[in-house]
């Protein structure tokens, strides 16, 4: 077993029987089970672990938990992940990590030259300097210099995530003494409880302290409660789990790392309870003096945790610098551990220093401040200064800081509770809740643990009683000596000189000077200062520095910190893997595709599959060996124009509408008249939204009195359903209408082309399919190829078409029968690319192309569809009001571009004379026409109908293409062919 010089031989809560090898920056080290990467590095004497974000200054571990600002690592190999705080990386077999933001190593970093230019890199430097001609010219190299770790390029196979939901009575966040007590009381009352803690083991601060409870080590008390909680099946205890989001309706977003089950890497919990108890504790602040970022400068609470929990002493001779009483607990612990303390530097006057100093035989420098830390890659000494300016130098290799404590109000604030500034605490505390939440312990601002426990018991008791639970009294644990918390805020030390590197945000390299500069430049609110200086951004979100920013802003502007206020606390509380939010929903199951029964056949034919609207998978085209896409489309289009083709129209939106008021309902929905429609016939209609813009189009057939079969566009079927239900339920609740979506209940194969009727004959049908007996826009029910079918004569191609609707279980059989029957006639399956060509040749509109939410039927030359007798139809009034203004509109036109056979991208603008000026229209679709044997296009053009015959100019990036404006129909304008 290896033992390292900085590790105590005994003590701590690590498992010395389980050494673990790990790699850091290419070298192999050993730690123990129970270590974090940070504690293992310190135990191995690695203090220089990172380079800073902007100046590339040497940095080491400062904290011991979520607050860690500087020691960020990139994990490699099977654990690959970006910027993780080393303090939150559990040591595991095979762990490989490297420092971020330095090259080639933190010890010899080429960009460390930046620190000598630091006077040239003040707040806002990048904004001010790299504006001309364009930030993007500089962005790449600046980002590389300033960058944090790279995200892994590929999905890590071992990273499997899952999501769980949990509902209950109480969620307790934090398993420190107050959280455990609250959970125990809730458990005993019979409530369904979840307790969430971000540490691997419960105990919170007790794990880092040498506290005695009821005469025994505090962790015995913790273990008893944990045992009791774990024995109750109604209690869910999550360790190594971070509650990072507080959502509406008391929902907590939790990421559980390393769940016990092997098959899960991380588990996201969406937990919701009637009451939430936040026992999230408090986070220590640092202090602002020159070179307060040197490796070896650490938070006092972190030193205490390393010493007591991990049995690591990150120095041999310490100086403690504090403005409050809490750091004395560390002094007592160091004394017990036999560590040399060069002195306690306390900025408070002697009169304020109370019982906390009793029993300490070490130098106490009251009313002193640390001016500066000396040393480059490790602190070697500090200069301290008394109130008269007399300085003393103290040699040390560890400087433990305590700038006071901030209640961890993050989740409370996310729940939209308000915060108040507490001057006695010199920090912000929870004020008015907005949800069913209470804060207890240090999170509520009670820094005295003895009082906190009593208050927690009382608050938890009334919280449970309010929910109807009976609460038995609990024995209050008896604690070893606890002193009152006393703080005299020290937002910065006195006598700082301009240019001193006194960091207020360690992670983002923001100095006190930067805050002053931002304020002098007029950024006087905390949100603006944050954005201008980047203080409080990044991985740690300013957990140790934000209140210092507020305090210094208050001092500089003669306000109170309460008047300055805080920035908004947003989720996540700590960085979260996207995977833990997504859970199992990754890859193809994020939004599953919808398939028709023909998908398998399409794929077997080598179709290039597209995603059509509403996640339908449809064939785009069917290339044969060696064929280009354009050749395949031309071949398919020619089949339809001169022979026969068939396409799978199953995704088309379909609704069955019936009931006493069905006819009136259809009349309200569509702008044209349906009241005179005969049974067995259909009509094309345009549906507007109430703002007078086209929502959808489609054909509706009348099956019987008060019974209709409506089709909608594929992509908008869901939207139309919502629209119809809204009209019916909200605007016309007394009407009797039933709307049944039947998109997936009817599949259809649409046979189209001059030989379509011949295919139907070959299939065999009970329906008289002569043009006289079965005219265009009629519907017939009967037998086709021995299967019950509903045949519609509609056409989206401009040729004779029979839409054979069958039940899904018959769809595949029907498809095979059609291909067999049509084979002698040369039938071809056609894809959506060819459908698009055929509809552009005919000038049929397509939602998402010509119809983009800004056009009405008049714009499309379809004023005839706006019935004068139906002024009440949805959207009608708005169309009329808009047209009364007489403003010129963009109108649908055809275009014959002079493009040498090249297609023009959809959306290409049409501009006056082809100049780089505001457009007067755009190309909505452009295809190679098989009937015209040239490129044709549709577009919307200002006053387009009046400009037919004129020449316009289309811009395609640097090219300008001339085009002649035509009517928007290039094939069979009278429609003889489709009626044939």
């Amino acid at each position, binding site marked *: 077993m290896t033992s390292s010089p900085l590790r105590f031989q005994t003590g701590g809560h690590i498992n010395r029987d389980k050494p673990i090898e790990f790699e850091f920056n290419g070298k192999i080290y050993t730690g123990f089970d129970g270590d974090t990467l940070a504690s293992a590095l310190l135990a191995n004497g690695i203090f220089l672990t990172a380079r800073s974000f902007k100046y590339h200054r040497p940095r080491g571990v400062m904290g011991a938990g979520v607050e860690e600002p500087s020691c960020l690592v990139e994990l490699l190999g099977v654990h690959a992940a970006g910027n993780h705080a080393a303090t939150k990386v559990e040591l595991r077999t095979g762990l490989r990590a490297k420092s971020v933001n330095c090259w080639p190593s933190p010890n010899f970093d080429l960009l460390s030259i930046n620190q000598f230019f630091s006077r040239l890199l003040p707040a806002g430097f990048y904004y001010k300097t790299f504006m001309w001609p364009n930030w993007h010219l500089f962005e790449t190299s600046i980002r590389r210099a300033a960058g944090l770790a790279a995200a892994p390029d590929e999905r890590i196979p071992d990273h499997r995530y899952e999501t769980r939901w949990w509902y209950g009575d109480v969620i307790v966040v934090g398993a420190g003494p107050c959280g455990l007590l609250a959970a125990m009381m809730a458990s005993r009352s019979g409530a369904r409880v979840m307790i969430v803690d971000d540490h691997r083991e419960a105990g919170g601060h007790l794990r880092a302290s040498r506290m005695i409870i009821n005469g025994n080590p505090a962790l015995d008390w913790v273990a008893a409660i944990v045992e009791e909680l774990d024995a109750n099946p109604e209690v869910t205890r999550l360790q190594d789990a971070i509650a990072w989001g507080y*959502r*509406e309706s008391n929902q907590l977003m939790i990421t559980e790392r390393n769940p016990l089950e092997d098959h899960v890497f991380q588990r996201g919990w969406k937990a*919701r309870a009637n009451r939430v108890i936040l026992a999230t504790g408090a986070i220590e602040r640092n202090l602002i003096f020159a070179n307060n970022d040197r490796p070896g400068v650490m938070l006092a609470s972190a030193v205490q945790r390393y010493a007591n929990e991990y049995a690591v002493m990150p120095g041999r001779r310490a100086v403690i610098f504090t403005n409050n009483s809490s750091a004395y607990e560390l002094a007592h612990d160091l004394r017990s551990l036999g560590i040399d303390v060069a002195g306690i530097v306390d900025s408070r006057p002697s009169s304020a220093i109370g019982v906390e100093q009793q029993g300490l035989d070490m130098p106490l420098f009251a009313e002193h401040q640390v001016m500066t830390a000396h040393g480059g890659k490790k602190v070697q000494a500090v200069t301290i200064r008394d109130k008269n300016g007399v300085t003393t130098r103290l040699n040390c290799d560890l400087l433990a800081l305590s700038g006071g404590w901030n209640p961890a109000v993050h989740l409370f604030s996310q729940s939209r509770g308000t915060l108040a500034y507490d001057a006695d605490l010199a920090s912000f505390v929870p004020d008015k809740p907005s949800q069913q939440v209470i804060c207890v312990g240090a999170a509520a601002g009670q820094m005295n643990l003895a009082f906190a426990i009593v208050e927690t018991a009382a608050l938890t008791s009334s919280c449970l009683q309010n929910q109807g639970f009976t609460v038995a009294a609990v024995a209050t644990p008896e604690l070893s000596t606890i002193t009152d918390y006393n703080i005299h805020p020290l937002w910065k030390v006195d006598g700082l000189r301009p240019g001193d590197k006194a960091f207020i945000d360690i992670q983002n390299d923001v100095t006190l000077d930067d805050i002053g500069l931002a304020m002098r430049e007029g950024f006087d609110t905390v949100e603006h200062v944050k954005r201008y200086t980047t203080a409080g951004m990044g991985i740690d979100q300013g957990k140790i520095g934000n209140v210092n920013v507020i305090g210094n802003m208050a001092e500089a502007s003669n306000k109170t910190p309460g008047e300055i206020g805080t920035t908004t606390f947003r989720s996540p509380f700590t960085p979260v893997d996207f995977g833990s939010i997504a859970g199992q929903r990754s890859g193809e199951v994020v939004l599953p595709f919808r398939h028709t029964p023909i998908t398998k056949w399409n794929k077997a034919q080598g179709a290039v599959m597209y995603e059509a609207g509403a996640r339908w998978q449809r064939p785009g085209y069917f290339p044969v060996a060696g064929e280009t896409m354009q050749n395949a489309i031309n071949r398919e289009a020619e089949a339809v124009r001169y022979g026969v083709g068939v396409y799978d129209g199953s995704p088309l939106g379909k609704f069955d509408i019936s009931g006493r008021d069905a006819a009136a309902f259809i009349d309200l929905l569509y702008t044209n008249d349906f009241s005179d429609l005969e049974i067995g016939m259909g009509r094309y209609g345009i549906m507007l939204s109430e703002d007078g813009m086209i929502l959808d189009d489609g054909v509706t057939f009348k099956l019987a009195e008060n019974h209709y079969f409506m089709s909608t566009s594929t992509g908008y079927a869901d939207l139309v359903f919502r629209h119809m*239900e*809204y009209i019916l339920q909200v605007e016309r609740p007394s009407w009797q209408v039933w709307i049944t979506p039947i998109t997936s209940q009817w599949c259809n194969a649409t046979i189209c082309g001059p030989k379509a009727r011949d295919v139907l004959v070959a299939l065999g049908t009970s329906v008289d399919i002569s043009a006289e007996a079965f005219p265009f826009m009629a519907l017939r029910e009967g037998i086709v190829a021995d299967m019950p079918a509903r045949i519609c004569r509609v056409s989206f191609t401009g040729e004779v078409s029979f839409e054979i609707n069958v039940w899904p279980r018959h769809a595949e059989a029907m498809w095979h029968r059609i291909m067999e029957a049509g084979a002698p006639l040369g039938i071809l399956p056609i894809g959506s690319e060819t459908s698009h060509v055929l509809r552009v040749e005919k000038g049929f509109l397509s939602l998402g192309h010509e119809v983009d939410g800004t056009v009405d039927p008049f714009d499309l030359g379809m004023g005839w569809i706006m019935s004068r007798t139906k*002024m009440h139809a949805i959207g009608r*009034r*708005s169309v009329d009001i808009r047209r009364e203004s007489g403003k010129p509109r963009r109108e649908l036109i055809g275009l014959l571009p002079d493009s040498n056979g090249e297609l023009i991208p959809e959306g290409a603008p049409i501009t006056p004379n082809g100049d780089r000026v505001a457009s007067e229209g755009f190309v909505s679709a452009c295809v190679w026409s098989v009937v015209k044997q040239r490129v044709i296009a549709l577009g919307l053009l200002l006053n387009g109908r009046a400009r037919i015959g004129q020449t316009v100019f289309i811009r395609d990036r640097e090219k300008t293409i001339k085009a002649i404006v035509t009517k928007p129909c290039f094939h069979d304008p009278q429609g003889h062919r489709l009626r044939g």
Partner: protein
Amino acid sequence: MLTLPCPFCGERDETEFVNGGPTKPPRPDITVTNSEWIDWLTVPINPIGYVEEKWWHAKGCGAWFTIKRHTVTHDIAKLDG
């Protein structure tokens, strides 16, 4: 994420619903003036406080229903009347 009280299905997760915006007065008939129509169509109420609004239980029973929700606290109160 909110939980919303569907009148038929009870308290359900927000992901099952589609928001339909604040409740409007009933759709006016064709006799109203243009400016009355435009006001009805385009001027939604947007208070800091309670608002009556429409939700559609899209992934549930399909009901369009009304709730009264506080736009800051998300508290859901009893509907008037």
